[in-house]
């Protein structure tokens, strides 16, 4: 996965650079390993760097009224920073994964990016024409969203036909348009619109910006939808709208359903920061069991689950989650987390909490068990590492040292979104993936 952005300011007096920086910061939760942007006016400037946005862009500056950029959760050694240079005149930030390209034979010996470049050269002769870029993305299959730009100051930003990855359109008054993975970007750098911060871009649809026009076009036909359901559980920010559904509303609803599905007698509800906090608040509202702040963080806020190795993840968890003993001592605790992958960070949390005197710990997870990989770029470890694939709930409770352990049902999760079951990709929870034609 990744966070992607495109900023198109009509008036050349604007400099999109700082808008890009703060826009990418608003997407930082979608990738913390590398960040980059390409900024255009008469010339083109590419800036990429490692780490958080503020680190990647420290001591550089850019100038131009058109910008595309991205943040990525993949370490620089494993993947190129966004945007990817597709040909010498076309670049693209892509969230998710292009899994195949019509008319091109994927070369397993090449890197992902090298395959994109070769296919672009083969299929479109590297052309920077808007029609070529459009044709290229119409051939792409998989679960992805993209923002592409050429040297002529034209931008194409769209969603793959399945709509796995989100993309929204926002505005800056008469001065410009903004596309981004999530609507929270508009709150941070867009205009203050009292109605809704952004418009959903539909699967298969793309926004086209040229110096003389801005319009929506259908690049691919989209009959079947496969929205990533994990966006609602963990990936997206709670202040964003994904597919026109407010993420916070879904998270609140998840908490409510957890209370119904996994009710238990307890003294206090505690959410594992940050993602599970709304689940816990809503669980508390539903049951009347008071919610408490159970943890205090040391250092910078990081998304520990997205760290590439186990030591880094545990480091992240231990620094992020110092248990506040007064909140748990002598109490029966409902501990809520968003998801469980391997189970060892959760085991660590349960251990720390027991050490601080919690009497009982009942773990509730705001999503079903993760049993399978993600073909669309969300990092899920090998199947042999997934605790939910191999162990039943009772066993997991024993392993992590909790008094009880319960997942939210998949039906419960789908219902919490308010969207229909057939509209989702739920592959990580049940191994059923959308057909990628």
């Amino acid at each position, binding site marked *: 996965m990744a966070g992607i952005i495109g900023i198109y300011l009509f008036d050349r*007096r604007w400099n999109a650079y700082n808008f890009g920086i703060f826009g990418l910061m608003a997407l930082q939760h979608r990738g913390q390993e590398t960040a980059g942007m390409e900024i255009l006016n008469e010339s083109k400037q590419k800036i990429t760097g490692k780490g958080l946005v503020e680190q990647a862009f420290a001591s550089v500056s850019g100038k131009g009224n058109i910008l595309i950029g991205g943040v990525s959760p993949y370490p620089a050694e494993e993947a190129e920073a966004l945007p990817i240079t597709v040909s010498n005149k076309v670049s693209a930030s892509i969230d998710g994964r292009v899994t195949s390209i019509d008319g091109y034979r994927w070369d397993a010996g090449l890197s992902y990016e090298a395959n994109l470049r070769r296919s672009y050269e083969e299929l479109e002769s590297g052309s920077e024409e808007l029609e070529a870029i459009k044709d290229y993305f119409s051939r792409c299959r998989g679960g992805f969203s993209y923002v592409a730009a050429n040297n002529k100051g034209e931008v194409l930003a769209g969603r793959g036909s399945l709509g796995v990855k989100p993309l929204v359109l926002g505005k800056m008054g008469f001065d410009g348009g903004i596309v981004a993975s999530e609507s929270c970007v508009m709150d941070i750098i867009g205009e203050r619109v009292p109605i809704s911060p952004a418009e959903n871009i539909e699967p298969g649809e793309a926004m086209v910006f040229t110096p003389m026009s801005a319009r929506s076009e259908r690049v691919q036909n989209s009959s079947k939808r496969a929205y990533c359901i994990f966006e609602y559980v963990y990936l997206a920010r709670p202040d964003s709208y994904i597919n026109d559904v407010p993420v916070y509303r879904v998270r609140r609803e998840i908490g409510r359903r957890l209370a119904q599905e996994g009710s238990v007698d307890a003294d206090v509800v505690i959410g594992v920061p940050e993602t599970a906090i709304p689940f816990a608040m809503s669980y508390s509202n539903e049951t009347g069991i008071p919610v408490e702040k159970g943890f205090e963080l040391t250092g910078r806020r990081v998304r520990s689950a997205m760290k590439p190795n186990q030591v880094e993840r545990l480091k992240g968890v231990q620094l992020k989650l110092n248990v506040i003993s007064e909140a748990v001592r002598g109490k029966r605790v409902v501990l809520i987390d968003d998801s469980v992958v391997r189970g060892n960070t959760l085991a660590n949390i349960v251990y720390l909490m027991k050490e601080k005197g919690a009497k009982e710990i009942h773990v509730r997870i705001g999503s079903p068990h993760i049993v399978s990989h993600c073909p669309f770029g969300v990092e899920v470890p090998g199947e042999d590492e997934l605790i939910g694939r191999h162990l039943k709930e009772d066993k997991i409770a024993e392993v992590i040292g909790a008094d009880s352990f319960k997942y939210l049902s998949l039906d419960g999760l789908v219902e919490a979104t308010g969207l229909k079951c057939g509209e989702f990709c739920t592959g990580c929870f049940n191994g059923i993936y959308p057909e990628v034609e």
Partner: protein
Amino acid sequence: MKILLVGGGGREHAIAQSLAGSAHCPRLYCISELINPGIRKIVKSGGGEYIRGDTNDPSAVVGASLKFGPDFVFVGPEEPNFHGIPDALEARGIPCIGASREVAELELSKASMRDLQWKYKIPGRLWYKKFKTFEEAVPYIEEYAESIALKPARQAGGKGVKVIEDFQVYLQDDKRKVKKEHAESIVNEYMKGYDDIEYRLLIEERVWGPEYTVQCFTDGRTVVPMPAVQDNKHAFDGDLGPETGGMGSISCCMNLKYGVEDERAVITEEEYRRSAEIVKMMIDAVQKETGKRYHGISAGQMMLTSVWGPTVIEMYSRLGDPEAANVLTMLKTDLVDICEAIICEDLNRVKVEFEDQAVVVKAVCPEGYPDRRDLAKGHPVALSASGNTDRILWASAEDAGNSIVTGGSRVVECIGTGDTLPEASAKAEELCRGVGLSDGWNLFHRSDIGTEKSVLRRVQLGNMAREIYQYRERRGLLGKRMIWIPGKGLMEVG
């Protein structure tokens, strides 16, 4: 009966149609810079004459009047008002529908308009500051200005206004830089060549809410409001893109309802009534101030804001373009009767009626508009013969003898009618599709104007502004703004 029409845009084509449809069967004459193909057709079929001329030159218009001997002259655009055309005509004893130079000050000088509105304490007044030079404005922009609208102090063909939201401190440097640059270009570019006004630049507080225009006929004694119309200023679908002169406008009944039989509306009947009352107060104030009679049209370009409810953004001294097409399509009363009553100052005796219907007007433009008019100009236009051509108004287009070519701005305006706005929008859409350029250059228009999604968004925006202003009204805070400046104390404006 003979009438001379001054001006050759889409608005004047709408006026010409309306006048030509009168029971008085007037013979129409016209003078404008470009020969509008639609007006030309009407003029020809009535046996009148169409001459090319400078409509801002009193001698040219008076000359044409003396030549044709019309019963009255109808002035379409604002600039002839600013150039004293109505005054020159009246000095010759030629009756005229058109604001005289002094009352047209309401539109000409956005600074004078606000001065007057504050002096007479007319509701819906925004906080503002006027400047004679760019240098004067700089320290102000640097120190105080936050979310503001930068405007040329004079009406400059609707161009040069920029609204900049500046509440994100982390983007402040970028925004202030653009504010300053734009303020400078207002003074040096947009205001260049206008020497009829002392002030150059106006800075106003930025407000939000749905915009609408309330156009009124007036003879100086009676003010007759026409249905509220909402223009769409963004160039592209979804309210995206740079500001234009207007890409299309919607109206339904008097208060911008969703449909004739619908409860939903952008503004309430009460807000419509209050808006018309504000226009009347502005007319009264300018007449009192100048001692002149207002004969013609005065319009409030309004916004329903959270601060005031109905709020004046700008005043027009003429019909709007494309808003004219909406109201004149809805007008049931004979326009010539209304004009005669304005001239005789007995407008109170005419019952002015409007059809309860939805009207959607969509402008079709050559690519390049609004920022690259040089590229948008000179392309030959092809209209498919099917469809009701009375519903297509020619705007920025010139009859070049054997072909009609684009003038660089909105080339035609297509009118759709129906019981609901989406219905009318679909009809206008159909007409838009029949317009093309025979040299292959692209045309564009806004397909979203008047659609359910677009209209309901505006209804919703109105609801949000209403909730806040009504709350303020209940608390006696309407129009009041209070700012606590640490160390200085409480500042009250309003």
